């Protein structure tokens, strides 16, 4: 109470400072004004305690100079940043709305198998920023292994690819996609190592994996095994990925025809799959345009029906009807294996 004059001065100066703080942009003020008042109060009382009136004047002068300078700076920032965002927002809109993706997916047990070891996933992020930076992801996997381990392997594959791909911080899409498949491989290898039963050979599992990312005007496809990515462009069907199967090599060397490959006794033998300690992931890049259709499938489809059937179905029907027709067609051919297809039509927004 004996210092009442000083106390009054404090509150007067502080009130003045509080009043000045209104000049800052609203967002800044709401966030920091009360902290700044506390700082002012501390500095003011410290100046009183340590020095004379001149010290206080000095301190008030410093604060006033700081105020004038930073009010201008914060207003400029407050003006620049939303404009920057608005600009980025527009670009993003253009990029994202450039294409709309019409996606359909379906998997079927087929006619001969007791369980479905295929798995599939389609991710078109709702978050525009994620869609803008990472694009849309489609993954198909065909599991192998006794005691229902094939299903586990293909489920692990699609989940790990999805998780890694969208969680990775790096911006480079093709290498992130390849690393995502490597991660999936690692998980399957580790799961295999965890099996320690005497006849664990039976419990070893593996899977094929094909993953496609649509981003801006580009399709990135990565694969291990014999599941495939095709693109239908202006009525022409092109196989984008290259199978890691013996029959595919024989076809490439001209020793057998694609038709012979479909019935070849070694048609199911693949030389690369997830579940091997070391696996190489191939990557393919393809431009896509409005009107193109991307198809992902397991060998239960493309190893059973002819490319011409695939082409004509996808060309005739929309994605939803296409996946039904494709699976029906594979089953008409006997449905020897699980059948899985994802059909993505790219159209202008």
């Amino acid at each position, binding site marked *: 109470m004996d210092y009442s004059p000083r106390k009054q001065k404090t509150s007067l100066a502080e009130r003045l400072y509080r009043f000045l703080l209104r000049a*800052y942009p609203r967002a*800044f003020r709401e*966030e*920091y004004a*009360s*902290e*700044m008042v*506390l*700082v*002012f109060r*501390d*500095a003011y009382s*410290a100046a009183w305690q340590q020095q004379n009136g001149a010290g206080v004047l000095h301190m008030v002068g*410093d*604060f006033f*100079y*700081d*105020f004038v*300078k*930073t*009010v201008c*700076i*914060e207003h400029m*920032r407050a003006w620049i940043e939303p404009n920057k965002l608005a600009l980025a927002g527009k670009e993003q809109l253009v990029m994202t709305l450039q294409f709309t993706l019409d996606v359909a997916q379906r998997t079927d047990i087929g006619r001969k198998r007791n369980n479905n070891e295929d798995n599939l996933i389609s991710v078109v992020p709702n978050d525009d920023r994620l869609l803008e930076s990472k694009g849309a992801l489609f993954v198909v996997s065909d599991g192998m292994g006794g005691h229902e381990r094939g299903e586990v392997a293909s489920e692990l594959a699609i989940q790990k690819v999805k998780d890694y791909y969208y969680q990775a911080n790096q911006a480079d899409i093709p290498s992130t996609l390849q690393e995502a498949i490597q991660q999936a491989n690692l998980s399957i290898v580790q799961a295999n190592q965890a099996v320690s039963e005497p006849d664990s050979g039976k419990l070893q599992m593996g899977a094929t994996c094909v993953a496609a990312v649509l981003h801006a005007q580009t399709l990135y496809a990565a694969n291990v095994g014999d599941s495939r990515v095709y693109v239908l462009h202006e009525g022409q069907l092109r196989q984008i990925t290259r199978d890691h199967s013996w029959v595919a090599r024989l076809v490439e060397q001209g020793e057998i025809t694609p038709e012979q490959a479909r019935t070849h006794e070694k048609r199911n033998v693949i030389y690369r799959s997830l579940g091997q300690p070391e696996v190489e992931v191939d990557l393919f890049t393809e431009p896509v345009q409005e009107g193109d259709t991307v198809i992902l499938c397991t060998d239960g489809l493309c190893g059973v029906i002819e490319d011409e059937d695939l082409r004509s179905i996808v060309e005739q029907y929309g994605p939803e009807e296409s996946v039904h027709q494709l699976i029906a067609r594979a089953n008409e051919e006997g449905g020897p294996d699980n059948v899985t297809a994802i059909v993505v039509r790219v159209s202008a927004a």
Partner: protein
Amino acid sequence: MPLTQAVFHILLALADGEKHGYAIMQEIGERSDGVVRMGPGTLYGSIQRMLKDGLIVEVQERGEQVRGEVRRRYYALTGFGSRVLQAEARRLEQLVHIAQSKQVLRGLGIPGGA
């Protein structure tokens, strides 16, 4: 990379532990013998951007409640913040070495001069 002077001083003030706004200002003033006088506008403007850049974080736990006063906000370096501080200090150290080797500091009465 050169950091702004304010950012570098704030990183340096937080190098030995979390502090609230006034403590940061105080340390900067004391350590520079009153040469560097940072005001609250500069301080919180820099803090805002440093938070956004991930150089520092606001620490919740500390902050003793003083008789109904607003709880003070404490700030601490992130791992990234301390790496940036280290890199910047190293950069400045190299510059000082160059200055020394060219005998720039000689005769100015500044410690470090020959």
